[in-house]
């Protein structure tokens, strides 16, 4: 495993290059170009705001600026996570030539998908940041949590991406399953709502390892509060296990890739 990591590190230029290729091709083929980076998050955020507006009309409480900011932050994180899983799951089967004809550490493909999504996320987050500065949303020391939260989110996404990409290679229908689960998962992840709305059921929702992370982003960025530490520790543990297990399984299955694809 240490050897594999060393090899991966030695080939980091390839990782950047494959990620760059993914981005380049996505933008090259479309008229909208870089707009793609913010289109999907924008759709999710808009949907969230509409849902939230609907809720506020029902309950009679007006929707606050902070709530909108919160949904924006959560929508972006969700768009990154869903995109990373979606693109990485087809990353191996989308490159049959490279898998069967040239040797390289194959984990580069799912990792590059995550990386390219991270870049899109960066673009969208940059735009949101400008909006936040203009609207004078307060900054606090709690923002220092953001890199930590982002790191754990990326680790979680990467672990799952490794497993899903390999699973999609062995079983052709897994990619449809992934689509269905991603579509459905937005309901069990606190993107459009806050877990606190569910009172005693809140803890059940937090079992979703992404939930404490998404909530954490909202709390630190929008409300200037520290994340819920026990739940954050839980997410970190899951992320760590996913990453290690994902890498281990991927490397174990890798020798069979070329003949199974």
């Amino acid at each position: 495993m240490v050897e594999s990591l060393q090899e991966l590190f030695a080939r980091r230029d390839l990782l950047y290059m494959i990620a760059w290729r993914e981005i380049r091709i996505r933008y090259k083929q479309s008229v909208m170009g870089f707009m793609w980076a913010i289109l999907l998050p924008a759709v999710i955020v808009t949907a969230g705001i509409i849902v939230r507006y609907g809720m506020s009309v029902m309950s009679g409480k007006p929707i606050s600026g902070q709530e909108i900011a919160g949904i924006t932050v959560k929508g972006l994180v969700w768009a990154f996570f869903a995109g990373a899983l979606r693109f990485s799951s087809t990353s191996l089967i989308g490159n049959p030539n490279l898998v069967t004809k040239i040797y390289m550490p194959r984990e580069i493909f799912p990792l590059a998908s995550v990386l390219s999504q991270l870049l899109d996320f960066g673009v969208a987050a940059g735009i949101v940041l400008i909006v936040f500065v203009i609207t004078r949303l307060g900054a606090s020391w709690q923002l220092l949590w953001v890199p930590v939260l982002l790191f754990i989110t990326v680790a979680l996404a990467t672990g799952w991406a490794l497993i899903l990409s390999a699973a999609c290679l062995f079983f052709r229908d897994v990619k449809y399953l992934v689509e269905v689960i991603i579509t459905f998962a937005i309901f069990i992840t606190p993107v459009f709502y806050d877990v606190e709305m569910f009172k005693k059921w809140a803890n059940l929702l937090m079992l979703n390892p992404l939930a404490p992370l998404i909530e954490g982003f909202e709390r630190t960025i929008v409300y200037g509060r520290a994340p819920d530490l026990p739940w954050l520790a839980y997410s970190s543990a899951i992320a760590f296990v996913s990453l290690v297990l994902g890498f281990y399984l991927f490397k174990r299955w890798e020798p069979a890739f070329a003949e199974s694809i």
Partner: protein
Amino acid sequence: MAADIVLQVSNVSKKFVRGEIHDSLRDLIPAMAARLTGRSRPSAAKKDFWALQNVSFELTRGEAFGIIGSNGAGKSTILKLITGIMKPTSGHITVTGKLSALIEVGAGFHPDLTGRENIYLNGTILGMKKAEIDRKFDAIVEFSGLADFIDTPVKRYSTGMYARLGFSVAAHVDPDILIVDEVLSVGDVVFQNRCLERMNTILRSGATVIFVSHNLRAIAELCPRSILLEHGKVTAAGPSQLVMDTYLEHAGAEGRQSASKEVGISRVKVRRSNANSVAYDSGEKIWVDVDVDCKGPCEPFSVVLFLNDEKQYEAFHTSTEYLGCQPIAMKPGDRFSCTFELDLNLAGGTFYLGVELFRFNNEELIHVFYPAQTIFVNTLTEVRGVVNPRPKVTAFELLRPGEPTKEAMKR
């Protein structure tokens, strides 16, 4: 001595499983459920297919090594095992140093990206660092001869251009071991020669080259030593010329047609004056011995001799009839033999020799024996193509209309 071994393949076997393979959960889950409940029907026995069996060889530093074999003999599989794309079912492969493979040039190209972008992409795929490509970029473009098209998306390239760019990138990787598989079949003659030169340069720099091809001419030029793979086994190993002879003899044997009728060709032998061989020099005199057996009554016939080139185009054909001999009338139990003498005025390459028994008066084909023998003509530098008409330059002058005198440049 042992320190100089850069690649060791010992007792390598590779098994592929044919038959019941589930490639979707939709198939797998019911199958697993059936197995758990013990209601599994006895499924069709899995068919194992051994692509390679107990293959062993060693390469020392700086060696050029050829792997010869017909399609499906396991050439590609052994390369995939050496490069690490697949793992052997049993046996060990030890590689010392940086390995680079040209299994399919341009495999990492993306059609929408430009030549320039693809050089970077493919270069990193083949194991170069970005800084290294920056340094070699101009040399790569220069070698490919595609400087004018370097900012064009490669989807607009022709197959030849594609291969040239792919080879150019791969040839600049500076590996310790370079694996080349059938790349030289693409591109024009000029580029093919440049590829061979480049590989020679790589060899001189101390790298090891493994060359896999059924382009026998290229193997002969580059590799002193090779192995022959047949049905996943090494059937010959040693100096390329001998290995090639074995390959060609076996290839001939597989094309043999049994004489089912009353009369049939029992033996075809190609030889130079003193000994059998399958490799000849252009212009050499060769003899073809043909033996015919007769088992039942038959009409008189003639013997036709023909030669096809690598692409199965006919280089020439002749017959005992054309050459002024009487039709051969045989009775059961008779044996007939004849010998053709040929001046082998052919350009370098692989040729397939065939013999037919033919009845000219009613155009009846009695027996075909093709390829009776595969022969290998050593490359000439002065001609390309099929024939060697022994060209010479007898005049060589430059005329310039503006000038009063004619300036002759004698060669």
